[in-house]
């Protein structure tokens, strides 16, 4: 191993060497700089390799040939190695990125950059307090220099503000150091740590000063106005280093200091960290300048790591894994994002639309956002999982809540930004694509994925990047250059193959879900053949969703369940976002979903009580009173996905605005994930009581209300896809209701809904999508009379609505029949009333759907329409066949499930003997019904044909119309506000109270952020006052009070 001191020596030596070169030899100077940074990186990398895999031990490096504490010593352990590697790599990439600037500014600038990198390594490596101070001052000064590289004139002011603040910091730090020295007689950190008891008697105040000074270097909220200004105005390459490298180094310094301070200072670190995390994220909400947003986000992330540092007393061995995971994810993503920002001309968040023409850059952007938010399979995900679990196990619930809340806000503005990029009107500015800059960005992407892989390997839960479905989904990223039909075929084969592979291992319940997800997914994908071109971004997202779903149903332990859950959430978000006007809806989808996911995470964490390998079956062993809380968290989490009333507002927009073949995926299939989760939950935990209230009873009410309000809102929609979307809320309400009944038939009904809802909702979305494609509108009143032009779509919708409404003889009736039998044994009767009210309302919107589209008056502009494309019709016809078959032989699927459910509810199962299905209360013979109705219908039809065989087809306006002949289809098509009387009577129930509630909440957060961020008045002097105020307040809170 090369002595780690050579990192410092190389940096410094090269910086000095540059002075020997003539000012004109810029290429040589630049080459030397790069070589030096590469050498430094290589040294760090070789240490990482040796310490992580080579079995090398942590090394102390003495200087001056004297042992510490009498001379300065350095230490190279695994964390140091990783961090120095991070710093050096970031600097190397920054140097590459800064090529043009470097050439312009000359060797001095290069020297400053080298010293900056060296000083950060020094902060990381040194074990001497005063030496730490020296390196800090070096970073301060080199920061001052590097700020000058910016083309932004405002950077000067920002740099000056920074210097003011750092003056205050260094004064405090020096006073702290000297008194600490006085108290312990040493400057060595380890020496002080071993004497911490003594120090704390005489010098806790001295320690406070040191601590607060170093913490202030982390730019804690709210004493960080200067930092934000730098982030905003400095050269992006430098902001990247400041955020990624300097932040990491400063955090490590705090970590060292906490060694001295001991456990009693951990809560202080935690408090400062969490306040920063939430405060900065909140303020970021109101930002629309990209670099400032990233600045806030940096502060937030560093705050989060500080919080983790403050939890080291409980984190034990996983401390480095967690803190490192979050820190690394932050560093890579933030550096990458800043580098990206250098490619974009405009400074508004919306200016990033310029990236849109470049799929690879978009991919980079997505990677960075995912890293930052902590989505699987990135390190932050594993780290967050372990962190939350440990917090829950140690009863630090408040902190857990705050962390998740902050993370949600963060995800909110980051995803909002992503939505802007994908959906907002593109600016005319192009991306400034100099190859070396782009290469640097890709370097960060590679680093991100490498980190993801490494963290996965280190994780005790197994590497997500080793799971086949995820790899399959990610593999589509490499196939993006292929045309749609090839990718589509591969996707379909993949889904079916995975189903066949898993088939022997599924239990009946899983089988039903697997069939809906995989086979059903493949069926829907058939419709994707209608798309031409390459459809970039569709397949990775769709397959990610399917991968998540496929992994969800086979998950055994809570970790793989949650990882699958997040994967499908993210995948579906990207899918939904593809719709033309779906930006706000996709955003609300992802926020609600992530909120739900966090609740699930919290639920699992509470349930596991520190057991890292937590089997889902063990949910049943969670004891009172914890179990009720676990149940509640998980249930709410799952219900967000099924769009139960109260958390449903994301669904209509998301489903309606999605692309034609995406709507059936997210409606027909994705909603089932929530149901599966609820199944899993109820299967393992059963009934739970909280303060004497039966929670399943509450769910019963929620289900009933969802059914009622979902249906009610559906009837007032003018937009066909929105109507279907609201109908999904209602349908999911039914399924939820069935589950919550906690009896055999209730569950069977819920399963029946799983299958039925998949079939008919997919079919209806496809038909409506095809029609919208042809007519160019989704407003139903603009259509009409399409039955003759699009007969196949009509048949699909007709069969679909008969099935949805539950009218015999189609399969929907089976659902209703089981439902009635189920409620006969249910414990609670009152919620039934609401469900009863909801039932007939379904007729209203269904009739409206078919009537206003297909019947009534054909519009002039539609007279030459053709039937929907073949590939949209094909799956619909398959669904029609399925519905008919399922209507006649429902037992095919259900009897196995029925017997499977016997293990949970032995009583009140169904009897499948012969052709008639019997329950304890009634009977039902699907084949007979079909035959009887068919016969009667055929007879009557034959009779009509006989008496009325010469009927003549007449023209559209040939009708009895109060002595006039109508001549405009628009005035004759009764379609708009179809159920006006209903609105008069019950419209008050559809007041968007829930929407208003959530809007008020987000508005509140936004206006809070908008108001409070005026605190950052821009005056450097005031910032210094903030800093001193921060010191005094922390002092009062910690020492004084």
């Amino acid at each position: 191993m090369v002595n780690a001191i050579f990192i410092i020596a190389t940096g410094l030596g090269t910086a000095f060497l540059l002075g020997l070169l003539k000012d004109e030899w810029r290429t040589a100077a630049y080459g030397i700089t790069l070589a030096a940074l590469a050498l430094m990186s290589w040294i760090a990398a070789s240490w990482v390799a040796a310490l992580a895999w080579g079995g090398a031990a942590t090394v102390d490096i003495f200087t001056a040939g004297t042992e510490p504490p009498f001379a300065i010593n350095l230490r190279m352990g695994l964390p140091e190695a990783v961090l120095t590697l991070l710093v050096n790599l970031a600097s190397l990439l920054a140097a590459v990125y800064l090529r043009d600037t470097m050439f312009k500014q000359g060797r001095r600038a290069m020297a400053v950059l080298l010293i900056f990198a060296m000083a950060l390594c020094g902060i990381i490596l040194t074990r001497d307090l005063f030496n730490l101070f020296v390196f800090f001052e070096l970073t301060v000064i080199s920061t001052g220099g590097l700020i000058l590289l910016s083309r932004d004139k405002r950077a000067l002011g920002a740099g000056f503000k920074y210097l003011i603040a750092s003056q205050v910091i260094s004064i405090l730090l020096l006073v702290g150091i000297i008194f600490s020295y006085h108290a312990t007689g040493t400057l060595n950190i380890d020496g002080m740590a071993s004497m911490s008891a003594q120090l704390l008697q005489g010098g806790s105040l001295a320690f406070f000063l040191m601590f607060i000074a170093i913490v202030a270097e982390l730019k804690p909220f709210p004493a960080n106005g200067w930092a934000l200004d730098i982030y905003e105005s400095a050269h992006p390459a430098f902001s990247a280093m400041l955020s990624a490298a300097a932040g990491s180094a400063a955090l490590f310094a705090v970590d060292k200091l906490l060694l001295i301070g001991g456990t009693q200072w951990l809560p202080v670190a935690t408090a400062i960290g969490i306040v920063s995390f939430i405060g900065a994220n909140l303020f970021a909400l109101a930002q629309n300048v990209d670099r400032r947003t990233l600045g806030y986000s940096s502060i937030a992330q560093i705050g989060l790591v500080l919080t983790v540092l403050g939890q080291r007393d409980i984190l034990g061995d996983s401390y480095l894994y967690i803190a490192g995971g979050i820190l690394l994810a932050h560093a890579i993503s933030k550096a990458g994002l800043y580098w990206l920002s250098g490619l974009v001309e405009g400074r508004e968040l919306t200016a990033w639309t310029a990236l849109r023409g470049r799929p690879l850059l978009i991919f980079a952007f997505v990677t960075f956002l995912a890293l930052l938010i902590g989505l699987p399979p990135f390190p932050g995900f594993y780290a967050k999982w372990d962190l939350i679990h440990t917090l829950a196990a140690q009863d630090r619930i408040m902190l857990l809540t705050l962390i998740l809340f902050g993370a949600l806000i963060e995800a909110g503005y980051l995803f909002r930004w992503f939505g802007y990029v994908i959906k907002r009107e593109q600016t005319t500015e192009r991306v400034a694509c100099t190859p070396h800059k782009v290469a640097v960005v890709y370097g960060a992407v590679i680093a991100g994925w490498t980190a993801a892989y490494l963290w996965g390997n280190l994780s005790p839960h197994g590497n997500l990047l080793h799971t086949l479905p995820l790899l399959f989904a990610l593999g589509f990223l490499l196939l993006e250059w292929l045309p749609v039909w090839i990718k589509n075929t591969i996707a379909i084969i993949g889904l079916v193959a995975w189903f066949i592979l898993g088939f022997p291992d599924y239990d009946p319940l899983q089988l039903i879900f697997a069939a809906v997800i995989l086979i059903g997914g493949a069926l829907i994908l058939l419709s994707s053949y209608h798309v031409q071109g390459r459809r970039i971004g569709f397949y990775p997202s769709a397959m990610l969703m399917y991968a998540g779903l496929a992994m969800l149903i086979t998950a055994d332990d809570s970790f793989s369940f949650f990882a699958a859950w997040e994967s499908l959430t993210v995948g579906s978000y990207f899918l939904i976002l593809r719709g033309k006007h779906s930006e706000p809806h996709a955003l609300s989808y992802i926020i609600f979903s992530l909120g739900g996911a966090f609740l699930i995470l919290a639920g699992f964490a509470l349930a596991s009580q520190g057991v890292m390998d937590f089997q889902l079956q063990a949910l049943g062993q969670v004891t009172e009173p914890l179990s009720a809380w676990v149940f509640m968290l998980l249930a709410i989490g799952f219900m967000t996905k099924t769009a139960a009333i109260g958390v449903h507002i994301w669904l209509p927009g998301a489903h309606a605005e999605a692309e034609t073949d995406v709507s059936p995926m997210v409606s027909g299939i994705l909603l089932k994930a929530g149901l599966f989760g609820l199944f899993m939950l109820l299967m393992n935990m059963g009934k739970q009581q909280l303060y004497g209230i039966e929670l399943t009873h509450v769910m019963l009410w929620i289900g009933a209300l969802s059914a009622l309000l979902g249906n009610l809102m559906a009837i007032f929609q003018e937009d066909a896809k929105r109507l279907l979307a609201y109908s999904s809320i209602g349908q999911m309400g039914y399924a939820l209701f069935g589950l919550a009944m906690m009896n055999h038939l209730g569950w069977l009904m819920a399963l029946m809904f799983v299958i039925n809802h998949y079939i008919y909702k997919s079919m209806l979305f496809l038909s409506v999508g095809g029609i919208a494609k042809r007519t160019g509108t989704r407003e139903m009143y603009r259509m009409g009379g399409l039955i003759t032009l699009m007969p196949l779509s009509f048949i699909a919708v007709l069969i679909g609505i008969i099935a949805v409404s539950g009218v015999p003889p189609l399969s929907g009736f089976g659902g209703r029949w089981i439902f009635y039998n189920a409620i006969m044994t249910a414990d609670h009767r009152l919620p039934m009333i609401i469900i009863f009210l909801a039932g007939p309302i379904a007729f209203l919107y269904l009739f409206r759907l078919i009537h206003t589209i297909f019947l009534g008056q054909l519009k002039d502009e539609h007279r030459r329409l053709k039937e929907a494309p073949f590939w949209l019709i094909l799956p619909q016809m398959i669904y029609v066949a399925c519905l008919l078959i399922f209507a006649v032989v429902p037992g095919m699927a259900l009897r196995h499930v029925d017997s499977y459910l016997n293990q949970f509810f032995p009583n009140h199962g169904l009897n499948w003997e012969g052709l008639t299905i019997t329950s304890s209360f009634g009977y039902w013979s699907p084949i007979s019904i079909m035959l009887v109705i068919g016969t009667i219908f055929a007879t009557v039809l034959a009779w009509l044909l006989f008496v009325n065989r010469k009927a003549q087809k007449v023209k559209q306006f040939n009708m009895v119309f109060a002595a006039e002949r109508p001549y405009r289809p628009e005035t004759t098509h009764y379609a708009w506000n179809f159920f006006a009387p209903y609105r008069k009577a019950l419209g008050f129930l559809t007041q968007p109270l829930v929407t208003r509630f959530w809007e008020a909440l987000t508005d509140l957060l936004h206006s809070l952020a908008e108001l409070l961020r005026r605190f950052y008045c821009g005056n450097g002097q005031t910032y210094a006052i903030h800093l001193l105020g921060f010191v005094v307040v922390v002092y009062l809170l910690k020492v004084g009070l």
Partner: protein
Amino acid sequence: MIKRLVVLLLLAGIGAIFMSLLLGYTPDNELNLTARYYAEHTAQDIGAANIVTAIIVTYRGLDTLGEVTVLFLTAAIVGLVLAQGRQQNSQRSQRKLPESGELLQTGSLLLTPLILLLGVYVFVNGHLTPGGGFQGGAILASAILLMLLTDPMRHFSHRLISVLESISGLIFITIGVLGIIYAGGFLDNRILPTGSLGQLFSAGVIPIIYSFIGLKVGAEFSSMLVNLSETEGS
């Protein structure tokens, strides 16, 4: 006004912190562990009579390296900043300055060599007497200042200054690295014999290092002064 009040309140808070530091402070009667080690071992280990120098150059040599770097960095940045400024202002015609007085001119002719000599003395004897590279370097730079005062238009070679600066720095580091190879670690002064206490050629490489520090500091201060002065002149 409110601002002043707030500041006063905050300073009262900070003052309270300082006050309790002060009240909790009891001067040591004995040297503490580290200081005692230095007192007892410096002479034989390092061979420097001036313990502070031993600490600065050897025991805490890394700090000193950082210190030198601070100056280097500042000089570089000041150069960077002012170079940018000059580029913009180079078009402007130079301001005519009044002649400096006879007294100043003659005085500086007389004093400059003496000052330079003193500076060199101070840093060469840094391991023996109070003084050292930083002090000596500053004295060197004061000579340059004097020359600049006498003739603000005087041109100094940036190139020379920067080569001097760089070479001194490189030598410092090289010696440090040599310490790893030939002695106990980075910046170990014992690659040369420690000699006998109190002699000029003693204390290993300390005098050499300190001399180069002196040169470097002198060069850096001069570079800053020259840069500032040229900006002023333009």
